[in-house]
């Protein structure tokens, strides 16, 4: 098990987004979280990736607690542990959020170089391999504005993969893609999963869910159900 979520609750002011949600994700598994707009799918994903602080419950990633409840208070991982946990979980944003002033290669290398998890030369070699794998060869020096939606999506995937995460999360990965690019992304996700990476996809695209999910979690009325 690479991710374990237990009794997670989150509210914004008086609005309860979800309460007492529990689920787990195994290595290499593709889990889709679906539900209508406003059901809290993205908020759940943001909690798992540490962008949002839940009110209650715990999140365990590769046996490290991102947060846990102690004496009714939520406790977050300390700075150094948080750094390690963050490297275990990647996120591909709906809007990609590439750094516009950096070219593709710089976007890929920035975090790995900053975290000093390898020599710059090895990091560059890894980035080149990833770009080749994601069919982005020759785009190393392109800037995000010069890329199509599908290419940006793949750069965002490559950027997240540079840190070798155990879990890769996608927020609405097909929302801005045409049929052909959608199939390409679907293939990439399956490929990553087959190599042992756990995949969590938040989407309201039911067709995509039916096509790719190994397990489906539906969010409705602040609760989740499993299919």
């Amino acid at each position, binding site marked *: 098990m690479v991710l374990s979520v237990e009794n997670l609750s989150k509210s914004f002011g008086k609005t309860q987004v979800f309460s007492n949600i529990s689920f787990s994700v195994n290595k290499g598994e593709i889990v889709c979280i679906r539900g209508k707009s406003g059901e809290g799918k993205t908020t759940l994903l943001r909690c798992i990736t540490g962008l949002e602080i839940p009110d209650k419950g715990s999140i365990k990633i590769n046996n490290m607690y991102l947060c846990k409840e102690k004496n009714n208070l939520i406790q977050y991982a300390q700075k150094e542990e948080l750094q390690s946990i963050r490297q275990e979980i990647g996120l591909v944003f709906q809007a990609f959020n590439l*750094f*516009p*002033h950096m070219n593709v290669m710089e976007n890929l290398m*920035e975090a790995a170089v*900053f975290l000093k998890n390898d020599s710059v030369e090895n990091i560059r070699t890894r980035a080149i391999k990833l770009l080749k794998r994601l069919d982005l060869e020759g785009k190393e020096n392109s*800037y995000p504005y010069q890329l199509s939606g599908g290419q940006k999506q793949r750069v965002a995937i490559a950027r997240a993969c540079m840190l070798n995460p155990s879990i890769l999360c996608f927020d609405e990965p097909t929302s801005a893609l045409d049929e052909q690019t959608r199939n390409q992304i679907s293939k990439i996700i399956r490929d990553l999963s087959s190599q042992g990476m756990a995949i969590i996809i938040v989407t309201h695209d039911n067709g995509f869910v039916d096509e790719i999910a190994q397990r489906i979690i539906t969010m409705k009325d602040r609760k989740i159900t499993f299919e």
Partner: protein
Amino acid sequence: MEAKVLKMLVPMALEGLKATLGVFALTLLVSLPLSIGVAKLRLSKNKIISKIVGIYIYIMRGTPLLLQLMFIFFGYYQVPYIGYAFSREQAIFIAFVLNYTAYFAEIFRGGINSIDVGQYEAAMVLGLSKSHTFMKIILPQVIKTVMPSIGNEVITLVKDTSLIYILGASDILKAARSVSNVYAAFSPYIYIGVVYLVITAVLTRLLDKVESKYNYYR
């Protein structure tokens, strides 16, 4: 007559030009980096810090630079306990830096606020530190956004340097005034006006170059 005017004006103007460009360069050199820090403090989550910086910016933007120059040189030493008599050069430096830092800080604050929150979130998910995120991800994008406004202020600064006359300092405008008084002629002002235009033209060219340097991305 014009030959006499020019003969007297040129050496005085050259001397004044040193003061004008000195004030201009020193103010830019110090207030630009300082203003980034001030903008960050203005955006601080600590409400007390943010409020104090807000008051400082309000005072600097809400009162004329001329008055600030006069206060620091003529008035500050009379302030009980903290009063100090600054030299003319010190007063000019302090007033210009304080004033322009406030203006630049407001421009940078607007620029920082304009950056999409997704950029911070992407950096956070990738494990970048806050300082690295600011210096490498946010600031380069902010600079591109604020360059036109900074450019305007830089041009204004050139013209504002003429205010140092109030403390008896000799800038190029004072040179024109002196020569004009001697020969009862208006032409020295026209010559000095041309000097200002030349400085502004050079700066505009430089600022355009800096702006175009950031055009490599959108």
